Every structure is written in C-alpha cells, then in structure tokens.
C-alpha cells in the first residue's frame, strides 16, 4: 500500500483543540466517504451493528440531538435518548452516578451536551466507553466546528484552493460561543486565516493570543474574507447587557444584503442555527444563494457518522 501511515486511535472526541491537523483531516475524509450513505434509498451501513449509543443531553437541543441520533442509526447502532428532565438527575443523582449506571447497561458511546465547560472531559475519566462532546458550556462544540470546515472544504471542491488558502470571519458573541472556539481550532490547525469580529464586550482584543485577528468593525473585514460564519446571539448565555440594544447590534454586526454586496462574489455564508432572523442575519441573506446553512445541517450528519465510527472503532480496538 502507498497510503500514509496515519492511524486514528482516539476513543473520545472532547475538543478540537487537542486534535492534530491529521486527526481533523481523517475525520473530514471519513465524513466525505460517509456522506454518500445518506443519498441512497437504503440509508444504512452495518459498521456499528450491535453497538449502543446514548444521547445524554443536559441542555436543550433539537438539531444536534436528532443529527447524532440519525448518524448512529445510519451506522446501524442502537440509540437511546436520555431525557434529562424525566430522569433521576432531576431527583438529585450526580453526573458520575448517572453515567456509571448508564454504562452498566452496556453502552459503547455517550454523546453529551452540558451547560458546564469540561463536563465531557470529566465524563471520559468516569466511564470506559467513548465520550463525544456535543457542546459544553462556552468551551467547545467539536462536531459543529468540523461540519463548518467540512462545508467550507466542499465549497472549494471545484476550485484549486484549500482550507489553508481561506480567510474566515467569525462574527458575533465570540466569548460566549463554543461554536466560535471549535471553528477557530479547526480552521487554524488546517492553516486558514481567521478574523474574529464583534463588539469589544463580546470579542476582546485578548483573543489575539489564540493566533487570530480581532476586529470590532464588520464593514472593514467583509471585503477581505472568503467565508463569513455568523454566530447566533445567545440570549440564554448573556448575563449582563453586553450590548445596548438589539437594533444597534443589527446595525453594526448584522449580515444584510447591503453588506453582502461589499463581499467577494463567491463568499460563503455560514450560520450554526437556530437563527435570529433580522438580528445577526436577515432572511434575504439566510435564504439567498451565498448561504450554506442547510448544507451545514446535511453535512453535520456525515460528520457525526464519521465521529461515531472512528471513536467507537478506536474504543473497540483498544483491546
């Protein structure tokens, strides 16, 4: 064989920060191969037959949970949705007890979302099965970062450009955003240029130490970027009045058709969803030809299939 001697051997996906560029490339390659499965009339392959995946969502999520569920099912795994509100967690059971009890039922992977940063890492030390981070506090959302990069990579397919040639703006409430953090790691590890844009309260200059540029002026940045990732204003994570009014935020940082007209004609617009239409992005842009928002959702499924296949596989072969 002439293939490179790279081997994936990580049983968990906790952060993108800890991955190498090769790890990220392996995940993206696997996702590319698995995307085809969802286009078949029989949307299923037997790779994870007999494996059990538990969705452990301590925070609301519709699309990520559904996406992980479908991803596991397309690999023929059995999936259990652990509904936190109806579980013994509401009776005061600790995370450790909950996790160990679920593991005792014979589980191969736990997909966890939690409001506290670092919970997936903690969980991975409590259990011996795979742990996959589906979003922890304002820390990371690795599969979102991967699917965003996957979508960018796909948009470059018919060009001779690579991720390392790309300049990406991430716009919005950066410090509260796990999506921003995971995107930042994935993009910079693959060599892309990243500019973080937002009001100084949400996007402080101190972020420059992560090896990216910081700007508080969206209009200055837009003409120079290939990709604009518009973050959702997260009302549920805003503890203080970080900006004076929604109208002012929209005026300064909302992506409108007028702003899009100042961008490169082939600019790619991403949004992790759910959107606040009329706030960070207008409907005309969100539903327009430059937006890849629904492609992101489709790609999310392929990316999560890749994560489950590789992590569960690595855990199973660990011996």
């Amino acid at each position: 064989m002439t293939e490179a001697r790279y081997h994936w051997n990580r049983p968990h996906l906790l952060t993108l920060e800890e991955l190498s560029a090769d790890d990220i490339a392996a995940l993206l390659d696997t996702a590319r191969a698995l995307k085809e499965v969802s286009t078949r009339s029989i949307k299923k392959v037997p790779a994870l037959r007999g494996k059990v995946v538990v969705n452990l969502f301590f925070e609301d999520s519709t699309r990520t949970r559904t996406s992980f569920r479908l991803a596991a099912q397309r690999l023929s795994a059995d999936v259990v949705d652990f509904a936190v509100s109806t579980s013994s967690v509401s009776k005061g059971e600790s995370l450790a007890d909950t996790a160990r009890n679920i593991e005792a039922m014979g589980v191969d992977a736990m997909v966890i979302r939690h409001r506290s940063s670092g919970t997936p890492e903690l969980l991975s030390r409590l259990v011996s099965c795979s742990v996959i981070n589906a979003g922890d506090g304002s820390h990371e959302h690795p599969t979102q970062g991967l699917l965003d990069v996957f979508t960018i990579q796909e948009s470059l397919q018919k060009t001779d450009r690579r991720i390392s040639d790309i300049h990406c703006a991430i716009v919005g409430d950066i410090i509260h955003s796990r999506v921003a953090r995971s995107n930042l790691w994935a993009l910079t590890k693959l060599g892309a240029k990243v500019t973080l844009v937002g009001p100084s309260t949400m996007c402080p200059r101190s972020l420059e130490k992560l090896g990216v540029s910081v700007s508080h002026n969206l209009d200055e940045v837009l003409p120079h970027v290939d990709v604009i990732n518009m973050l959702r204003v997260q009302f549920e994570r805003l503890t203080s009045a970080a900006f004076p009014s929604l109208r002012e935020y929209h005026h300064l940082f909302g992506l409108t058709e007028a702003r899009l007209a100042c961008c490169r004609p082939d600019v790619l617009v991403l949004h992790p969803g759910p959107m606040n239409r009329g706030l960070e992005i207008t409907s005309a842009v969100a539903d327009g030809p430059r937006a890849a928002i629904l492609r992101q959702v489709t790609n999310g499924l392929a990316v999560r299939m890749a994560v489950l296949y590789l992590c569960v596989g690595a855990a199973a072969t660990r011996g």
Partner: protein
Amino acid sequence: MNANQISEAIEGIKKKILLHLKTEAVEPSKLALVGIRRRGEIIAGRLSSLLQPHLGFKPPVGALDITMYRDDPMRSPLTIPLGTEMNFRLDDRPVILVDDVLFTGRSVRAALDAMVDFGRPQFIRLAVLVERAGREYPIAADFIGRNTEVDRNSLIRVHLRPLDHQDGVFIEPDKKGKGGQR
C-alpha cells in the same frame, strides 16, 4: 507479473466475460461493472473500456468501498473509508464484481452485502486479476486473470496505474498478513 502480463490477464477476463454473456444468452445492454476500491475499481474501469468496442457502449463502472461492511469493521488499525461511488442502480442488471486478488473471500462477502443496498441485480459474477488458495468463505471466481500458488503467509501486492507508479504484481514471502490480503 509485469505490466504486459497484467494487460494480457485483463484481456483474458474480457474474453471470458464476452463468452459468458453469449453462452448464457444474457442481454448485455444493462451490463454493469462494480470494482472494489481501490484496485478492483481500476481493473473494472479497464475492463469497461475493453468491452466497449464489442458491446457498442461503455458499461458503467461503480466503485465500492466495503469498509463499513467488513465482518471485522472494528479491527485495528481502523480503516479510514474511501466512500462508494455508484451512480446507477443495480436492479435487474447483469453485474460483474471486480477485485484485484481473491484470497479469503471475506472482501467479496462484504461487497455482496454492500451491493444489495444498491438494488437487486439479475445476477452477480466475480472477476479477479489474481486468484490464490486460502478461501475462508464459500466463494469462487467466475473469471480469473491468473492463478498463483503462494505460501499461505505470503502477501500478494498488486500495483496499478494511476494509483501506483507502474503496473505489477509482487509476491512478498512470509509476511504475517493474517488474512489481511483482499
């Protein structure tokens, strides 16, 4: 085997396929080739081009990634899948499955499983460039380029352009392949 011998072997497979279609009175207009990635896909592509002048059309070629269908998908090291490219349905088609080496038969079993997900073919026949002893599943090839007798622990490496620098089949003695050969 050198490049010429490989060309002759593939030419021989082509003749056997044409004879088979004739004796079995198969309507060839729906003939399709499916190659197991990656070298089976290359052989299938070459067969398709060789068959074109005889059939008056170029039979479509599918590329099958069997990673997700292996009977040991969770073996170490984990295989990074390449993806399947099948731009046509297999329903009611005579289909030739193509691989480079037939050894244990496990890859072919996985491929049969995978193909069923793309429709119900009229029939499936198996063509291989190199056949060697060592079957672990009840599988036999219908069209064989070359039989070889090698030690059980030897590894047969097939090199094919454009994936490799040049065409060639090489035998590496006494490698603990442990059924790893496709």
